[in-house]
């Protein structure tokens, strides 16, 4: 339906898309909250899938350029920084908690999260290393 609307020439600009995405997020939040309050786990999941699909469909119909090489480069830098900060702090805090034997479970969770992230990084690095960029 959205694509049909877009083909008719009713394309959104960036501002309209922001309002559209924010409205969908608000509805998703409300539905998820209602689902949680009623003890229904399926409702938030369905709301999430529908919401994300609607946002993705809406994004296709935006006439302006939403992302370009500069935004990709900024994302790359931000992701790298997040990775470095998270892995370092999670490993440090995790091992400290384990060593002190205080909240050891949280410590193991943090340490394993750091390890999982390292493994994922290595996997993606080797994948993109082979792929033409």
């Amino acid at each position: 339906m959205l694509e049909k609307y877009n083909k008719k020439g009713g394309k959104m600009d960036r501002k309209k898309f922001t309002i559209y995405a924010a409205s969908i997020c608000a509805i998703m939040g409300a539905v998820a909250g209602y689902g949680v309050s009623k003890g229904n786990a399926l409702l938030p999941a369905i709301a999430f899938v529908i919401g994300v699909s609607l946002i993705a469909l809406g994004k296709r119909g935006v006439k302006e350029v939403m992302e370009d090489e500069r935004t990709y480069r900024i994302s790359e830098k931000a992701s790298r920084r997040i990775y470095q900060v998270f892995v370092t702090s999670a490993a440090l805090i995790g091992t400290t908690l384990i060593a002190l034997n205080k909240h050891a479970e949280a410590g193991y969770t943090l340490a394993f999260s750091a390890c999982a992230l390292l493994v994922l990084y290595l996997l993606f690095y080797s994948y993109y290393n082979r792929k033409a960029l």
Partner: protein
Amino acid sequence: MKTRIKEFRARYNMTQEELAKKVGVRRETIVFLEKGKYNPSLKLAYKVARVLNTTIEELFIFDEE
């Protein structure tokens, strides 16, 4: 890196928005390019040069520092 994009754009009476649309980037990217705060990819540099009927060498002045 310094650029002469603003100068060439003025020559063709082109706005930042128009140039951005022609090369397929956001207007902010053109702003940062003109300020010399963003080093473009070879592909983007080529596209901008082509739209402004010039060469990459004419448009971008490489500063060693």
